[in-house]
């Protein structure tokens, strides 16, 4: 099976380890991975900040980059939700019929990583080894946008050596919300404090999630508090094996 990796601009630019782990994991499971280099950003930041015309242009660009892909896999629930929820509507803003059709057709072929593993490949035990105490934060766009449900937990439970501990008030947003974190920095910080407190209460060494954006936020708070707790994307945990553990940072 061949898939095209939609790595997201955030992972590409700031968190390449997540993208690398996604590639290693998929290849280990026998999937052929391509990376269409034309891809940039899905347009979510522009759309959610009120810049819909600009977002539509970026969406058309991304859809064109993946026009030939049989399946598109992304290590981001948030960007997958953007494609699934907003691309059909944004397509109405694009005058070029072919480009609009490509945008409207992308959602059906786009999978968030855990959806692809569990639903398409039908695997839960990906052969990972990660001997740490881990807690899982269900990011809003995975939980309520894509409704990934317990797929991430089913994958984590099969990781050898991993001790999974439940996060309190897990369904509460971490307070990131894109430009919300800057425009409403005080309210965002209040939400982050509660999330970080819940993470620390688990006694976990690592907090994981489906989104590098949420992890950037939670991790930014945990590091500012000098908590010693790390944030690691789920793809990195699933990619880790005896032979290739997650590189420490």
């Amino acid at each position, binding site marked *: 099976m061949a898939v095209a990796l939609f790595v997201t601009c955030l992972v590409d630019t700031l968190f390449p380890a997540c993208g*690398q782990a996604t590639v290693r994991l998929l290849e280990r499971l026998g999937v052929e991975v391509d990376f269409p280099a034309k891809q940039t950003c899905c347009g979510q930041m522009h759309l959610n900040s009120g810049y819909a015309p600009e977002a539509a242009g970026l969406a058309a660009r991304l859809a064109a980059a993946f026009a030939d892909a049989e399946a598109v896999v992304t290590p981001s629930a948030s960007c997958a939700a953007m494609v699934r929820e907003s691309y059909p509507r944004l397509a109405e803003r694009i005058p070029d019929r072919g480009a609009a059709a490509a945008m409207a057709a992308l959602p059906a072929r786009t999978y968030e990583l855990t959806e692809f593993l569990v639903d398409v490949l039908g695997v839960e035990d990906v052969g990972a080894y990660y001997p740490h105490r881990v807690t899982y934060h269900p990011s809003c766009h995975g939980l309520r946008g894509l409704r990934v449900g317990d797929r991430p937990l089913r994958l984590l439970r099969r990781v050898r050596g991993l001790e999974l501990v439940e996060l309190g008030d897990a369904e509460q947003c971490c307070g990131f919300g894109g430009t919300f974190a800057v425009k409403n920095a005080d309210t965002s910080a209040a939400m982050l404090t509660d999330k970080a407190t819940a993470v620390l209460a688990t006694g976990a060494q690592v907090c994981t999630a489906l989104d590098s954006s949420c992890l950037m936020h939670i991790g*930014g708070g945990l590091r500012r508090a000098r908590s010693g707790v790390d944030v690691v994307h789920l793809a990195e945990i699933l990619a880790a094996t005896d032979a290739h553990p997650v590189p420490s940072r």
Partner: protein
Amino acid sequence: MTDARPFPAAARESLADSQLRHNLAVATTTIRARRAAVVGEVADWEGLRRRGAAVKAYSLEHLDELLEQLEASVTATGGVVHWAADAAAARRIVTGLVAATGAEEVLKVKSLTTDEIDLNAGLAAAGVAALETDLAELVVQLAGDRPSHIVVPAIHKNRAEIRDLFARTIGPADLTDSPAELAAAARAFLRRRFLAGGVTISGANFAAAESGAICVVESEGNGRMCLTLASTLITVMGIEKVVPRLTDLAALLALLPRSATGERLNPYTSLWTGVHPGDGPQSFHLVLLDNGRSRVLADRVGRDALRCIRCAACLNVCPVYERAGGGAYGTTYPGPIGAILEPQRDSLERRGSLPFASSLCGACAEVCPVGIDIPRLLVHLRGAEVDRKRGRPLEGRTERTAMAILARAFSGRRRYEAAQRLGRGGDRLARARGAALRDALMGPWTRSRELPVAPDQTFREWWRERAGEDDRGRS
């Protein structure tokens, strides 16, 4: 009455109020759990939601016909209908009606609509004292405060604060903070006023166009007292509250109490039709209020906000509301519903910061009993606010420029890769030159979080290196 400060400034202040934070966290957590429990009992909650949403959507599509039908039914059953285009017109109508009775005091049934038009101040200016009879509204009124929640107006106050307030104002000085004693103090103060049987002013939860029946939903029975013992009843109702028939209330009255207070059945649901000789108010006036609602209705996406049945479930699950509190919104309707309704009903000029007061976490849309896609409307209104400023070169220019630069950087592979290299260089420079430059650029972030460190290699650089050829994937 309302506060026009932008949300971030008002929230900064309320976030620092530890009593408010504690009260809100306890109260919203309790209501959330109660709601979840009773919603979970309903076999087909989603089906019920769809029915509720369909009734409201149909009513909005046929609002013009339904309102005229309502006017005819109310008139035919002995009521008098008045049309108010805005708050000033509504105040003028109501104060005129009260003046005609000669009353110097009127009783209020809990009503957001009368808060929206600032009716109490209008009555006071005409020499009429309006007394709030809903327990929590009375608390807010006695404290000279503003309601901070749609269903639980005094949610920001705890028992001890209410004890102090009552002891100072209406109750015996030796009052304790036991709920029974507090309720008894309020009862002693209110009951003789109910029995005087003068003028009552209420809002309305629903109105059935076919029969002219008006419905008010409340928990204490104080509303029922006012509605039945008054000689004159004046109801101020937003035009979006009309539905076709009484039977349409079946779904809405099943959805509302479970969503609002976590009750299976609403304790006091009052329904009346016109005037009945010898029974209840002998004079009934219905004031139909527009006050910006027609403008909301004109927006095909934004109009969904008018479906709201004021259950406040979206407030109780909202992480922003839970922390900043209702006061930070500065509007009659706070929380997620206020953030989509008020910028439309009032204006973007005054309420343009509200659609941005959300992390778009989606918790509100999950609980809305009439299926309003609140995050979608928030994004829609953010677009409207950005578009409004696009026409004003001096407003929001920094953000507009940044977004234009980013859109340009994302618009081609080479530009994007150049921007990545530039960003990495900037990150290195900021780190080398210390915190000052970084904080100047990213202050709102770095005040409470560390920034990520730009990696030595982007993902795509790694991919190319791994592929061993520079041009792989180029198209």
